[in-house]
């Protein structure tokens, strides 16, 4: 089956990178996976017709949850951190989702932004959490197994690869079946969905929960990659980057978020090197370009070419 083959090949490739590539590539690929996982959640939401401008909230919650384990409770197990990140984000999403699942369109978009900025404000004002500087995290074991010093990121990358592929496969199963069609139905005509006997609120709530959990997992992964957390993770520009990657990749395939994240990381690295003062400007222009000329994201180019080939 094509899907199984793609997963195995990707996993093998990523493991290969984790074992043999130089540190800076390992780092970059980890970030790509982390952001890709977050955007996977955005994909699910966009299928339901919603855009969240506040995934930074869960990204930050996941990152800080992982870091707090290390910093305050002296747990330095990466596996536990990943689970904690996802779980903490899931709890917050379960609570906020109750309010947000009742909203759509711009309300949903701006409310999600507002909540992420609340977290940002809290983090910045919290001296205990390092305020604007944040703090470091260290992970030395993975589910109990000690990691040889210097090899931490390689192990994290391998773990991240497994997480990302599993997440992608699960998401694919979810959205290619009944649930995906139901999400599209909610997007197309909520009224009809209620009049058929299903609950749009429930669909949105569950998808919001999924997106939040994925963003939390991504946050924990990113925290492990960088070794440091700060309030920037919850800042609106971080959320904006996720949205950019989401519209860059489009919603047609669960692989798209990761490819788009990869392109984004490359562009960001180049941008930081050669034009650091105009990064946001470039991001904004890029967004406008995609919206105006490529509403389906870069994935539409790939599909167009495949059709003409």
């Amino acid at each position: 089956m094509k899907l199984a083959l793609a997963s195995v090949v990707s996993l093998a490739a990523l493991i290969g990178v984790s074992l043999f590539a130089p540190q800076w590539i390992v780092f970059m690929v980890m970030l790509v996976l982390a952001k890709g996982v977050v955007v996977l959640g955005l994909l699910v939401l966009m299928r339901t017709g919603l855009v969240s401008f506040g995934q930074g909230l869960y990204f930050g919650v996941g990152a800080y949850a992982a870091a707090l384990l290390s910093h305050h409770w002296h747990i330095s197990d990466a596996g536990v951190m990943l689970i904690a990140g996802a779980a903490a984000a899931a709890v917050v999403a379960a609570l906020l989702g109750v309010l947000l699942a009742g909203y759509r369109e711009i309300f949903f978009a701006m409310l999600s932004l507002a909540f992420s900025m609340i977290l940002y404000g809290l983090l910045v004002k919290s001296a205990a959490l390092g305020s604007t500087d944040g703090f470091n995290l260290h992970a030395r074991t993975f589910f109990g197994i000690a990691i040889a010093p210097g090899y931490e990121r390689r192990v994290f990358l391998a773990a991240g690869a497994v997480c990302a592929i599993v997440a992608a496969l699960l998401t694919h199963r979810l959205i290619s079946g009944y649930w995906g069609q139901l999400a599209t139905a909610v997007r197309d005509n909520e009224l009809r969905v209620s009049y058929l006997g299903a609950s749009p609120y429930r669909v949105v709530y569950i998808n919001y929960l999924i997106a939040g959990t994925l963003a939390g997992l991504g946050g924990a992964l990113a925290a492990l990659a960088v070794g440091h957390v700060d309030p920037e993770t919850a800042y609106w520009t971080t959320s904006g980057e996720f949205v950019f990657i989401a519209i860059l990749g489009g919603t047609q395939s669960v692989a798209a978020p990761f490819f788009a994240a990869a392109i984004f990381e490359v562009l960001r690295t180049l941008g930081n090197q050669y034009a650091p003062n105009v990064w946001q400007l470039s991001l904004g222009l890029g967004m406008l370009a995609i919206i105006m000329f490529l509403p389906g994201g870069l994935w539409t180019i790939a599909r167009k070419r495949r059709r003409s080939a």
Partner: protein
Amino acid sequence: MSAMLATEALQKKFDAVTAAANITLSFDADTVVSLIGANGAGKTTFLNMVTGYLKPDSGRIQFGERDIVGLSPREITKLGISRSFQIPQLFQTLDVRENLLIAERIAGADNPAAATEAALARFELGPYASRPAGLLPEGIRKLLDVAMALSSRSKLLLLDEPTSGVSADEKLAIMDVVMGAVWAAGVTVIFVEHDMDIVARFAGRVVAFYDGAIIGDGPPEIVLRMDEVRRYVIGEETAHAAA
């Protein structure tokens, strides 16, 4: 044996407009009833209240033994009342087959795929099966809307102007298909209609609305000839031509 659907003293006002004035009606199972009335007379408001989209200011609505005022459209649909709309409510980006499939799946059909194919056949939608709902001609959109409503294992089907927006020559054909499918399913039907020929042909009972009140209720031969109905609903000219 109580009626299938019964309303008692329904009242509904929108500021200065009385959309429902003391509406007391009862509908038995296995009947075909038509609601007629000029625009704004209160027919769609009645359907909206029965299906939970609007809450009456006062009054009761009973479906079988159950009091349904205050329930949401979703809950009411699950009880067995389903509905089609004046403007068809479809899933624009999904194709016809997918629209029906999702309706069947939400309704909890044992074999959604088979039920979908049956619906496609019953409503003669086969040729359009793979076309996105947003790209269908109006008559087909209407049929799809009804087909989706029917798939919810409904006991009572409310059709809001099933032939409106469709050309005059198509109206009869569409109604034939709809009523044929409905008959096969053994469902009670209440339909809102403006075309008196269709009303006369398909309805066993006619309820006439005017300004939120009921001005006629009975077999079509009688109601359609009532003076008030001719004046306020049909219009004198048409009545003369039909008589």
